[in-house]
């Protein structure tokens, strides 16, 4: 008989002390993922948003003649559209990172299963996954904002800093529901639908490219209820330096609540999917 006792790990696996320390145990995994995949996302992450600003903000903006009074505090169409695009970009990252990649972790490469086979639990996995998403978004949106800065569209430096930081919240408000969705579906065909019926209309009608007032009184209210408008308006107020603090608090509360509830549900769903 072979003595198997010697072939095990030098120290037996121990349960992590807390949520964060458990999530940090996956830090090297996520760093490796980043090191091996960052090249594939360079164009979609940095070039695409810049081209959108150039095409719609600068070139189409040259044909826009709007009274600054109707542009929600922006003094030009470019200044109006730029912060909206930053928030929309954070949302796009949430959609692209939380759909096919997450589905692959459950269904194709099944990486989540190897994670749960350790002392880690679903809460740790979700925290590490969303933490990675948030850092990645903050980096991408930071670069985007820096590229926009020379266009002279921002109000104050501290407003710009806060506009950058709230992208972490915006990405969570979209990342958590999309994560929940990806953990719940049976087949990957459903992704085409959330891109076409979710992401694209949200991008186009949530006050990113034009003031929601242009939608008419009824649709304006619908657009204002969308999480992207909350994020866009928050980002725009901060970036332009024209802040209604009470409204900003509402936006933060809305996005925080959405992220919190969906986070909790996503942990439960992942646990259900991996353990039971």
């Amino acid at each position, binding site marked *: 008989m072979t003595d198997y006792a010697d072939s095990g790990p030098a120290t037996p696996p121990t349960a992590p002390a807390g949520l964060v320390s458990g999530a940090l145990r996956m830090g090297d995994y996520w760093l490796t993922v980043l090191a091996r995949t960052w*090249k*594939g*996302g*360079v*164009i*979609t992450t940095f*070039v*695409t948003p810049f*081209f*959108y600003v*150039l*095409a*719609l903000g600068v*070139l*189409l903006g*040259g*044909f*826009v*003649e*709007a009274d600054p009074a*109707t542009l929600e505090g922006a003094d030009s*169409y470019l200044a109006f559209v730029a912060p909206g695009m930053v928030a929309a970009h954070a949302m796009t990252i949430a959609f692209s990172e939380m759909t096919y990649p997450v589905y692959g972790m459950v269904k194709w490469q099944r990486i989540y299963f190897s994670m749960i086979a350790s002392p880690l639990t679903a809460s740790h996995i979700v925290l590490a996954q969303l933490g990675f998403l948030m850092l990645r978004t903050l980096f991408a949106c930071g670069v985007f904002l820096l590229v926009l800065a020379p266009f002279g569209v921002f109000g104050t430096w501290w407003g710009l800093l806060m506009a950058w930081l709230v992208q972490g919240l915006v990405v969570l408000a979209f990342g958590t529901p999309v994560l929940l969705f990806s953990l719940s579906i049976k087949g990957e*065909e459903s992704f*085409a*639908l959330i891109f*076409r*019926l979710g992401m*694209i*209309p949200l991008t*186009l*009608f949530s006050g990113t*490219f*034009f003031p929601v007032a*242009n*939608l008419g009184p009824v649709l304006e209210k619908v657009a204002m209820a969308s999480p992207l408008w909350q994020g866009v308006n928050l980002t725009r107020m901060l970036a332009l330096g024209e802040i209604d603090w009470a409204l900003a608090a509402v936006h933060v509360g809305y996005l925080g609540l959405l992220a919190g509830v969906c986070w909790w549900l996503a942990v439960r769903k992942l646990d259900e999917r991996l353990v039971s």
Partner: protein
Amino acid sequence: MALFTAAVSATVARPLRGGEAARLLLWRNILVYRRAWLVFITGFLEPVFYLFSIGIGVGAMVVGFEYAGKPVDYREFVAPGMIAASAMNGSLLDATFNFFFKLKYNKLYDQMLATPLRTVDIAVGEILWNQLRSGIYVTAFLLIMVAMDLVHSWWALLVVPAALLIGSAFGAVGMALTTYMTSWQDFEKVTLAMMPMFLFSATFFPVTAYPEWLRWIVEVTPLYRGVVLCRELTLGVPSWGSLVSVVYLLAFGAVGLVVVRRRLDSLLLT
């Protein structure tokens, strides 16, 4: 259906006649999409959303817009741009991502070539399916334009074949490029080509927005030719320039088809 059963129940394998092969592949795609009908239906929404958002939402702030020296409603300017751009997007996505998956992971074409189908049948069959789909989408879009009172000329009917021409040209070239790709990372290059064409080919603003030298570059890109072709038709002002666009797109697609046929032969038959 009858053709399908006849083909599969034939006991002796024989070369398929011209149209037969293409129709078989078409039937296969219809069977596949029958299970994803919602994906099929929602496929035409994207250009409509763009028309509503940029055309109407942003368009409300665009005043005194002129095209070819005449004042034009900005919505009427953007709508044909969306037809051309979505014809390109739809068939390029199909001809790159989906085609790559079938070629490399599904090994679908290897299976098909074990039958009397030839590589050229596969290329033609895929493009035909693609065109059937985008024909349905562009017709739906045209009906929406009519309902929004954006169409005032019978020339607009020709935008359907024009969109099919754009789609098949890009489809053929896209498939040809896909045969050279080795990993998903290569598709970043597809995005890198598609996205600037979508944004800068006079889809949302006229070429007069560019300096002269840049204008020349934009005017020789294939999507620009498609956009002006569609625009001249829906605005009812076709010109000799439209014919140039048609010939350009035909040549563009023909080159793609020749390359894709050669490449498929060497990839799948050797």
